Protein backbone atom coordinates (compact mmCIF):
# COMPACT_ATOMS: atom_id res chain seq x y z
CA UNK A 1 0.00 0.00 0.00
CA UNK A 2 1.14 3.56 -0.70
CA UNK A 3 0.99 5.61 2.48
CA UNK A 4 1.39 9.35 2.98
CA UNK A 5 2.19 10.85 6.38
CA UNK A 6 1.35 14.28 7.75
CA UNK A 7 3.14 15.42 10.90
CA UNK A 8 1.72 18.44 12.68
CA UNK A 9 3.63 18.53 15.93
CA UNK A 10 7.17 19.43 16.92
CA UNK A 11 9.84 16.99 18.11
CA UNK A 12 10.31 16.33 21.86
CA UNK A 13 7.30 18.53 22.64
CA UNK A 14 4.78 15.97 21.43
CA UNK A 15 4.58 12.22 20.97
CA UNK A 16 3.26 12.62 17.39
CA UNK A 17 6.73 13.08 15.90
CA UNK A 18 7.96 9.85 17.52
CA UNK A 19 4.87 7.85 16.66
CA UNK A 20 5.05 8.91 13.01
CA UNK A 21 8.63 7.67 12.72
CA UNK A 22 7.80 4.34 14.37
CA UNK A 23 4.80 4.01 12.07
CA UNK A 24 6.91 4.75 8.98
CA UNK A 25 9.51 2.15 9.95
CA UNK A 26 6.89 -0.48 10.73
CA UNK A 27 5.08 0.18 7.44
CA UNK A 28 8.33 -0.13 5.45
CA UNK A 29 9.21 -3.34 7.29
CA UNK A 30 5.85 -4.77 6.24
CA UNK A 31 6.62 -3.97 2.60
CA UNK A 32 4.46 -0.87 2.28
CA UNK A 33 5.64 2.20 0.44
CA UNK A 34 5.89 5.61 2.12
CA UNK A 35 4.80 7.97 -0.64
CA UNK A 36 5.83 11.09 1.27
CA UNK A 37 6.18 12.52 4.76
CA UNK A 38 4.88 16.08 4.98
CA UNK A 39 5.82 18.34 7.90
CA UNK A 40 3.39 21.11 8.82
CA UNK A 41 2.50 23.37 11.78
CA UNK A 42 5.21 22.94 14.45
CA UNK A 43 6.04 19.67 12.70
CA UNK A 44 8.51 21.64 10.55
CA UNK A 45 10.82 21.71 13.58
CA UNK A 46 11.52 18.02 12.96
CA UNK A 47 13.73 19.17 10.09
CA UNK A 48 16.25 21.52 11.70
CA UNK A 49 19.86 20.38 11.71
CA UNK A 50 20.52 22.66 14.71
CA UNK A 51 18.79 20.10 16.92
CA UNK A 52 21.07 18.79 19.64
CA UNK A 53 19.32 16.65 22.26
CA UNK A 54 21.09 15.38 25.39
CA UNK A 55 23.29 12.38 24.55
CA UNK A 56 21.12 9.89 26.43
CA UNK A 57 18.04 10.83 24.39
CA UNK A 58 16.90 9.78 20.91
CA UNK A 59 17.84 12.09 18.05
CA UNK A 60 14.52 12.65 16.29
CA UNK A 61 15.92 14.72 13.40
CA UNK A 62 18.76 12.31 12.61
CA UNK A 63 16.30 9.42 12.69
CA UNK A 64 14.34 11.02 9.85
CA UNK A 65 17.51 11.79 7.89
CA UNK A 66 18.60 8.16 8.24
CA UNK A 67 15.19 6.95 7.06
CA UNK A 68 15.49 9.12 3.95
CA UNK A 69 19.04 7.89 3.33
CA UNK A 70 18.16 4.21 3.70
CA UNK A 71 14.77 4.13 2.00
CA UNK A 72 14.77 7.23 -0.21
CA UNK A 73 11.77 8.53 1.73
CA UNK A 74 10.57 11.91 0.49
CA UNK A 75 10.62 14.29 3.51
CA UNK A 76 8.90 17.57 2.67
CA UNK A 77 8.74 20.67 4.87
CA UNK A 78 6.05 23.27 4.21
CA UNK A 79 7.71 26.49 3.06
CA UNK A 80 5.20 28.88 4.64
CA UNK A 81 5.04 27.06 7.98
CA UNK A 82 8.86 26.84 7.94
CA UNK A 83 9.39 30.54 7.26
CA UNK A 84 7.07 31.42 10.16
CA UNK A 85 9.26 29.36 12.48
CA UNK A 86 12.71 30.20 11.11
CA UNK A 87 13.16 26.91 9.26
CA UNK A 88 14.92 27.64 5.95
CA UNK A 89 17.33 25.87 3.53
CA UNK A 90 20.33 26.99 5.61
CA UNK A 91 19.31 24.99 8.68
CA UNK A 92 17.65 22.05 6.94
CA UNK A 93 18.89 18.59 7.99
CA UNK A 94 20.01 16.09 5.28
CA UNK A 95 17.23 14.24 3.46
CA UNK A 96 14.61 16.98 3.88
CA UNK A 97 13.43 19.37 1.21
CA UNK A 98 11.29 22.51 1.37
CA UNK A 99 8.21 22.82 -0.82
CA UNK A 100 4.63 24.07 -0.88
CA UNK A 101 1.35 22.87 0.58
CA UNK A 102 0.44 21.46 -2.81
CA UNK A 103 2.74 18.56 -1.92
CA UNK A 104 0.42 17.69 0.96
CA UNK A 105 -2.68 17.72 -1.23
CA UNK A 106 -0.79 15.65 -3.80
CA UNK A 107 0.09 13.15 -1.04
CA UNK A 108 -3.65 12.85 -0.32
CA UNK A 109 -4.37 12.22 -3.99
CA UNK A 110 -1.52 9.80 -4.74
CA UNK A 111 -1.52 7.73 -1.53
CA UNK A 112 -3.91 4.93 -0.72
CA UNK A 113 -3.97 6.29 2.83
CA UNK A 114 -2.94 9.62 4.30
CA UNK A 115 -2.20 9.22 8.00
CA UNK A 116 -2.18 12.33 10.18
CA UNK A 117 -0.03 12.58 13.32
CA UNK A 118 -1.00 15.34 15.71
CA UNK A 119 -3.64 16.25 18.23
Amino acid at each position, binding site marked *: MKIGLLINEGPYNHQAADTAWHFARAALAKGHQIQRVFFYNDGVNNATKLTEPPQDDRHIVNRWSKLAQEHGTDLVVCVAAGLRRGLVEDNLAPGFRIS*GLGQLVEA*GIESDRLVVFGD
Partner: protein
Amino acid sequence: MTQVAEETEREAGTEAVVKKFMFVNRKAPHGTIYALEGLEVVLISAAFDQDVSLAFLDDGVYQLLKGQETKSLEVKNFSPTYRALEGYDVEKLYVERESLEARGIREEQLLVPVQVVSAKEMAELMEQQDVIIGF
Protein backbone atom coordinates in the same frame (compact mmCIF):
# COMPACT_ATOMS: atom_id res chain seq x y z
CA MET B 1 -13.71 21.13 -19.11
CA THR B 2 -15.64 20.71 -22.36
CA GLN B 3 -17.45 17.47 -23.08
CA VAL B 4 -15.10 16.74 -25.98
CA ALA B 5 -12.05 17.24 -23.79
CA GLU B 6 -13.57 15.00 -21.13
CA GLU B 7 -14.23 12.24 -23.64
CA THR B 8 -10.75 12.53 -25.12
CA GLU B 9 -9.29 12.25 -21.65
CA ARG B 10 -11.35 9.19 -20.83
CA GLU B 11 -10.31 7.46 -24.04
CA ALA B 12 -6.68 8.20 -23.29
CA GLY B 13 -7.18 6.71 -19.82
CA THR B 14 -5.78 9.81 -18.17
CA GLU B 15 -8.88 10.95 -16.35
CA ALA B 16 -7.87 13.13 -13.41
CA VAL B 17 -8.33 11.61 -9.97
CA VAL B 18 -10.95 13.37 -7.88
CA LYS B 19 -10.92 12.38 -4.24
CA LYS B 20 -13.20 13.43 -1.44
CA PHE B 21 -11.16 15.56 0.99
CA MET B 22 -12.59 16.61 4.32
CA PHE B 23 -10.83 19.12 6.54
CA VAL B 24 -11.91 18.70 10.14
CA ASN B 25 -11.62 21.77 12.35
CA ARG B 26 -11.79 21.09 16.06
CA LYS B 27 -10.00 24.02 17.64
CA ALA B 28 -10.89 27.62 18.50
CA PRO B 29 -9.74 30.22 15.93
CA HIS B 30 -7.21 31.86 18.23
CA GLY B 31 -4.97 30.58 21.01
CA THR B 32 -3.25 28.11 18.66
CA ILE B 33 -2.30 28.32 14.99
CA TYR B 34 -4.23 25.22 13.89
CA ALA B 35 -7.28 27.04 12.52
CA LEU B 36 -5.25 29.55 10.51
CA GLU B 37 -2.79 27.06 9.04
CA GLY B 38 -5.61 24.60 8.45
CA LEU B 39 -7.42 27.18 6.37
CA GLU B 40 -4.27 27.71 4.30
CA VAL B 41 -4.33 24.03 3.31
CA VAL B 42 -8.00 24.31 2.34
CA LEU B 43 -7.25 27.23 0.01
CA ILE B 44 -4.40 25.33 -1.69
CA SER B 45 -6.50 22.19 -2.04
CA ALA B 46 -9.07 24.20 -4.01
CA ALA B 47 -6.51 24.53 -6.81
CA PHE B 48 -6.35 20.73 -7.24
CA ASP B 49 -9.95 20.25 -8.43
CA GLN B 50 -10.79 17.84 -5.64
CA ASP B 51 -14.13 17.33 -3.90
CA VAL B 52 -13.43 19.43 -0.79
CA SER B 53 -15.59 19.81 2.30
CA LEU B 54 -15.04 21.29 5.75
CA ALA B 55 -16.31 20.01 9.07
CA PHE B 56 -16.51 22.08 12.24
CA LEU B 57 -16.89 20.43 15.59
CA ASP B 58 -15.94 20.89 19.23
CA ASP B 59 -14.37 24.36 19.72
CA GLY B 60 -13.87 24.48 15.93
CA VAL B 61 -17.39 25.92 15.64
CA TYR B 62 -16.04 29.17 17.13
CA GLN B 63 -14.02 29.65 13.92
CA LEU B 64 -17.22 30.57 12.10
CA LEU B 65 -18.59 33.08 14.62
CA LYS B 66 -19.57 36.49 13.26
CA GLY B 67 -18.06 39.64 14.74
CA GLN B 68 -14.63 38.36 15.72
CA GLU B 69 -12.46 41.19 17.05
CA THR B 70 -8.76 40.40 17.37
CA LYS B 71 -7.21 43.86 17.58
CA SER B 72 -6.51 43.66 21.31
CA LEU B 73 -4.93 40.22 20.87
CA GLU B 74 -2.68 41.65 18.15
CA VAL B 75 -3.30 38.63 15.96
CA LYS B 76 -4.69 38.50 12.45
CA ASN B 77 -8.46 38.25 12.11
CA PHE B 78 -8.68 35.70 9.33
CA SER B 79 -12.40 35.00 9.76
CA PRO B 80 -13.34 36.94 6.56
CA THR B 81 -11.46 34.21 4.64
CA TYR B 82 -14.29 31.77 5.37
CA ARG B 83 -16.56 34.05 3.33
CA ALA B 84 -14.12 33.84 0.42
CA LEU B 85 -14.25 30.02 0.30
CA GLU B 86 -17.28 30.15 -1.98
CA GLY B 87 -15.10 31.87 -4.59
CA TYR B 88 -12.77 28.87 -4.47
CA ASP B 89 -15.72 26.52 -5.05
CA VAL B 90 -15.46 25.25 -1.49
CA GLU B 91 -19.12 25.27 -0.57
CA LYS B 92 -19.66 22.20 1.60
CA LEU B 93 -19.37 23.37 5.19
CA TYR B 94 -20.76 21.03 7.81
CA VAL B 95 -21.22 22.08 11.42
CA GLU B 96 -22.03 19.63 14.17
CA ARG B 97 -25.29 20.48 15.94
CA GLU B 98 -24.22 19.08 19.31
CA SER B 99 -21.10 21.28 19.33
CA LEU B 100 -23.18 24.41 18.59
CA GLU B 101 -25.72 23.56 21.28
CA ALA B 102 -23.10 22.79 23.92
CA ARG B 103 -21.69 26.29 23.37
CA GLY B 104 -25.00 28.14 23.09
CA ILE B 105 -24.33 29.19 19.48
CA ARG B 106 -27.18 29.63 17.02
CA GLU B 107 -26.81 29.05 13.27
CA GLU B 108 -27.63 32.71 12.51
CA GLN B 109 -24.54 33.76 14.48
CA LEU B 110 -22.30 32.11 11.88
CA LEU B 111 -20.42 34.01 9.17
CA VAL B 112 -21.35 31.83 6.23
CA PRO B 113 -24.15 29.51 5.12
CA VAL B 114 -23.53 26.03 6.52
CA GLN B 115 -25.27 22.70 6.84
CA VAL B 116 -25.90 21.86 10.47
CA VAL B 117 -25.71 18.09 10.95
CA SER B 118 -25.94 15.73 13.90
CA ALA B 119 -22.90 13.89 15.24
CA LYS B 120 -24.29 10.74 13.64
CA GLU B 121 -24.67 12.43 10.25
CA MET B 122 -21.17 13.85 10.59
CA ALA B 123 -19.83 10.34 11.17
CA GLU B 124 -21.62 9.19 8.00
CA LEU B 125 -20.09 12.07 6.02
CA MET B 126 -16.64 11.13 7.30
CA GLU B 127 -17.26 7.54 6.30
CA GLN B 128 -17.69 8.69 2.68
CA GLN B 129 -14.34 10.51 2.49
CA ASP B 130 -11.13 9.37 0.85
CA VAL B 131 -8.90 11.76 2.79
CA ILE B 132 -9.55 13.33 6.19
CA ILE B 133 -7.15 15.94 7.49
CA GLY B 134 -7.79 17.24 10.98
CA PHE B 135 -6.47 20.39 12.60
